[in-house]
């Protein structure tokens, strides 16, 4: 019981601290802006730990953060192998192929307004469907190893990136196109000097959406069959064996990988579209 009480006291104290911080004169400084969510996160971990210990919640229902941390530190090789299998081989390769193909297809259909008019609604429609459902089919076609996971990722990321790129290629204003026209610029000159740069904010929007989809696709596809490694495989087998600390460890890795992947693409976006108003303000 002492654990629960301590956790609640800690929670109250941190709650008070965050309110003070957010109302203080420094509340707009960078440090406080990072500190407040960090305190919130830590509070959740502490309360979680305290409540689990204090109420003796069994580890097969909810392991305390300390047990998860311990599991992570003792299972690094397994976690690393799973990470490589699922993220590097499955998600990343699928992401590169899918996004690359989407951009190429967008450029290819760019010269045909007819195809664009047809593909855009169809693409938008497909992007809203539960594409993850293709996983069992693709696992049958491409086998249990990472190739089938990459295929699922390709299918999942393709349409959002395609739709965004097609929209982006239309983003250059009529005036800017007229300007290129007065220079007698060729189609490819206009594409590379005007329309692709102008499309970058849209393309990156698609690429950012695709990061999350890629990881989800690679993990969930493993629920339909995989070799004996991979994050999705580990999660589903450890859940079956009630090894929840290992499940949480994999989830932690997935969360870190997901945000790092997103952060990386966002950083690239910042570098490429530094000129865009949305990037300039911050």
């Amino acid at each position, binding site marked *: 019981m002492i654990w629960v009480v301590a956790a609640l006291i800690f929670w109250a104290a941190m709650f008070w601290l965050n309110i003070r911080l957010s109302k203080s004169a420094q509340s707009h400084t960078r440090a406080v802006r990072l500190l407040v969510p960090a305190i919130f996160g830590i509070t959740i971990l502490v309360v979680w730990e305290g409540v689990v210990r204090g109420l003796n919640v069994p580890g097969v229902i909810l392991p305390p953060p300390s047990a998860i941390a311990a599991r992570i530190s003792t299972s690094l090789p397994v976690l690393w192998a799973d990470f490589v299998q699922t993220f590097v081989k499955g998600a990343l390769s699928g992401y590169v192929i899918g996004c690359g193909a989407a951009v190429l297809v967008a450029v290819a259909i760019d010269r045909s307004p007819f195809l664009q008019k047809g593909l855009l609604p169809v693409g938008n429609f497909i992007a809203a469907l539960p594409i993850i459902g293709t996983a069992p089919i693709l696992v049958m076609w491409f086998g249990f190893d990472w190739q089938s996971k990459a295929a699922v990722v390709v299918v999942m990321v393709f349409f959002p990136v395609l739709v965004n790129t097609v929209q982006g290629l239309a983003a250059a204003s009529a005036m800017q196109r007229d300007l290129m026209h007065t220079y007698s610029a060729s189609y490819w000159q206009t594409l590379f000097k005007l329309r692709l740069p102008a499309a970058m904010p849209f393309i990156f929007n698609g690429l950012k959406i695709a990061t999350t989809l890629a990881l989800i696709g690679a993990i969930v596809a493993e629920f339909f069959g995989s070799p004996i490694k991979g994050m999705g495989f580990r999660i589903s087998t450890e859940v079956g064996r009630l090894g929840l600390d290992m499940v949480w460890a994999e989830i932690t890795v997935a969360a870190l990988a997901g*945000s790092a992947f997103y952060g990386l693409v966002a950083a690239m976006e910042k570098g490429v579209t530094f000129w865009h108003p949305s990037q300039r303000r911050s």
Partner: protein
Amino acid sequence: MSRALPVLTVVAAILALWYAAAVWMNATWTRDQAERAGVELSVSDILTDTMAQERPVLPAPHQVVTELWNTTARKKVTSKRSLVFHGWITLSATLLGFAIGTGAGILLAIGIVHNRAMDMSVMPWAIASQTIPILAIAPMIIVVLNSLGIQGLVPKAIISAYLSFFPVVVGMVKGLRSPDAMQLDLMRTYNASGRESFWKLRLPSSMPYLFTSLKIGIAASLVGAIVGELPTGAIRGLGARMLTGSYYGQTIQIWSALFAAAILAACLVGIVGVLQRVTLKRMGMDQ
């Protein structure tokens, strides 16, 4: 109307490609069978056989449509073999989860907009959570709740709620913050209270953002419910149909479940879209 022709053309092209792929991918099995039986096959034999295998690598579109028809219109809806039955199982979890997730998301967004401490503490996590594959915890939620004796609808609904929650929070916060300084100043010149500003300015302005998030949210809810059916080896629901189909190599069954899910998703997103148009039109905000 000018869009109908291009869209139909693209759909026709997809169907044509699909048929071609079906012939190409299923032909191997046809030839193997023929070789085993020692029969010579003509091209038309191959064509007809690849269109009508029982477990094709890629079922032809009409096979999927026939299966969809047989398992919906021609089965009693209470039958375990009816896709309407399985679809309803998945749909009910989706709708329950969506309602919970949306309600909680809107409430949290209101809290975030009105309380700076909450904003600073929670908002970064809500945004970050969109970049992580939360779907990965679905199996755990199912199994843990199962071991607590909670089964069936509720665990799947919780996953659905979880998936629709964050998009709604983020979109709704954006929407509630969308009135510009001038509009807020105007409310201030009327000496409006915070509550009045909320009902008369912030909430109406947030509607376009809310509906955009709702479309994302309901699609995510459906995915959540489907994935929620995978880990425990559930036997009911569209996800379960896909899983059992993949165990037994019943490709036609997988494809028809996939299409049922797609149709369901399209209907749900479409309904939200109609609601959006009607609501915004009534509020004079449609474009």
